[in-house]
């Protein structure tokens, strides 16, 4: 092996080990009081070699993580049906399972490297099939296929579309005391699996965010020793620098139609919200106050922006109406409310709320004006809401390390996603993927 090859090989190894270290594990800390028991029988595989993935295991994990289901252990199953005519309801009633999911995966003969998964969901007590479905896709995306099955099952049983077949961005940091930390922008499945490091830098990387179609991301990187906003296409890795202004270049947020990006710039003095037309790169200034205006986020209808401002003395959430240009204060409870994110229903706003000395995640109901605290730890931040509006991913500290955690919007379910190593922060939940 010549020198060039040796260097190349060690670089590859580095990338692989980085990916492994950035991986998250899941610890469910709180579920609903009476989670629904469901049995997910291991799916059969017909095709060359072994199945590309333990599909039932992925589905099992998704349902358990929702906190609303209590999957039956495989050792407790009295049978392993894979077709409807192999189902004996008494076997499942005997172990107290309310629902049963069976399925089959096979290699598609007509498309090389693709698989097809068929599945059926049964109501054990009513002794009937309640849903059946089929998903196709590349074998390399077998986990995503399993997440899609979980999404369908979740929707059938709860009435809410699932958000398992989604992804997330986060920043992981390896500390170098007395030196420069390593910052890694990472893309992973919504369950933390399959992490990919998109960018590694010795300078800060922050504020990752998604385009509404899930095809692009944007973030802030200090790689030039100054902050700048970058846009990157996920499929090709192609990226471009969108801003290079004096002062702050931060908090990018795509408009719901994907054409405009809200951002924070301080080139004209104090930090203000600006809109960039992504086709022409033309900037429009939205706020002109001498206070700090930051953390813009769009209402789902695109007609107004929420942002954080300390124009009243302390940081609070305000709403800017795009048409009338009116600014209205939305939060009054507590001395610190910041970094709002809005659910697709346009009603639930998750934010960082200071109570006593702790910073917690809270949800503000825009219709009633009521604020409900969701977390009770000390340093919670960066809430990001699932595209189905059910769960909030956020960053917190646990045992002195930065970790990700999730909480249901109604407070009923909590789980943690600590990394095997380093600090993890700034989760950004993707929209529904195409």
């Amino acid at each position: 092996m010549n020198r060039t090859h040796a260097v190349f090989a060690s670089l590859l190894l580095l990338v692989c080990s980085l990916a492994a270290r950035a991986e998250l594990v899941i610890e469910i800390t709180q579920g609903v009081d009476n989670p629904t028991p469901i049995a997910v029988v291991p799916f059969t595989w017909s095709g060359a070699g072994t199945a590309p993935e333990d599909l039932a295991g992925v589905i099992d994990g998704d349902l358990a993580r929702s906190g609303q289901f209590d999957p039956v252990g495989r050792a407790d199953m009295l049978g392993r049906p894979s077709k409807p005519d192999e189902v004996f309801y008494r076997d499942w009633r005997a172990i107290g399972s309310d629902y049963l999911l069976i399925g089959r995966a096979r290699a598609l003969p007509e498309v090389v490297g693709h698989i097809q998964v068929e599945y059926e969901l049964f109501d054990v007590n009513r002794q009937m099939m309640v849903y059946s479905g089929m998903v196709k896709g590349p074998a390399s995306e077998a986990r995503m296929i399993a997440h899609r099955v979980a999404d369908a099952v979740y929707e059938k049983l709860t009435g809410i579309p699932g958000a398992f077949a989604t992804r997330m961005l986060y920043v992981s940091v390896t500390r170098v005391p007395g030196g420069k930390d390593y910052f890694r922008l990472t893309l992973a499945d919504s369950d933390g699996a399959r992490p990919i490091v998109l960018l590694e830098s010795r300078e800060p990387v922050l504020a990752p965010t998604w385009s509404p179609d899930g095809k692009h991301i944007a973030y802030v990187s200090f790689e030039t020793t100054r902050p700048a906003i970058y846009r990157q296409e996920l499929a090709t890795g192609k990226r471009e620098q969108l801003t290079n202004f004096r002062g702050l270049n931060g908090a990018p947020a795509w408009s719901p139609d994907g054409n405009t990006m809200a951002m924070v710039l301080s080139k004209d003095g104090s930090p203000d919200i600006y809109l960039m037309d992504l086709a022409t790169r033309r900037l429009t200034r939205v706020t002109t106050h001498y206070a700090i205006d930051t953390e813009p986020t769009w209402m789902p209808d695109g007609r107004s922006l929420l942002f954080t401002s300390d124009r009243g003395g302390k940081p609070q959430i305000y709403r800017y109406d795009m048409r009338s240009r009116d600014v209205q204060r939305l939060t009054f409870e507590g001395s610190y409310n910041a970094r709002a994110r809005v659910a697709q229903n346009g009603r639930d706003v998750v934010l960082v709320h200071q109570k006593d000395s702790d910073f917690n995640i809270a949800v503000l109901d825009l219709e009633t004006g009521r604020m409900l605290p969701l977390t009770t730890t000390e340093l919670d931040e960066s809430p990001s809401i699932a595209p189905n509006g059910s769960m909030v991913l956020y960053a917190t500290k646990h045992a002195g390390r930065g970790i990700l955690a999730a909480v249901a919007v109604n407070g009923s379910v909590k789980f943690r996603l600590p990394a095997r190593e380093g600090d993890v922060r700034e989760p950004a939940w993707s929209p529904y993927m195409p």
Partner: protein
Amino acid sequence: MKLVPTVGKVTALIFSAFLLAACSGSDTQEQDEAAARAAEEAAARAAAATAQQAEMQRLQEAAAAVGNLFYFEFDSSALTQDSINKLDAHIALLQQTERSIRLEGHADERGTRDYNMALGERRANSVRDYMVANGIANYRIETVSYGEERPLAYGSGEANWSQNRRVELK
């Protein structure tokens, strides 16, 4: 403070004294006196330059002694008296040079990242404004905020947080 002429100016003065002496021609006594005067002046200049050098060294030592970190209270960008005293030492030194500086603003981990980014900038600006008000040209100062992204102390609690709410002069 009175400015001491530079080495170039001293050389020019000595040279012109020499020229004057050379032009005055026949009278050797006058020549000797002029030369003596020139030497005296040169010695005085050299002494002043040495004094200037000593003063620079004193200013450098004073600035180094106070350090390059200026601390802030939570969610505040107001300069503390301690910071003002430290800054005065740096300003005294900067007034004697043309060096460009970079002011890096930082925040502790409490509160949101983007708000802290703005707070770090406000702190850096607060130091810059004080420097500009005390005669340091704006164009010599670059400010950048790192928010809470580059802590000096990694732990939680006020003992760590107070070290991280800072502006670094570089």
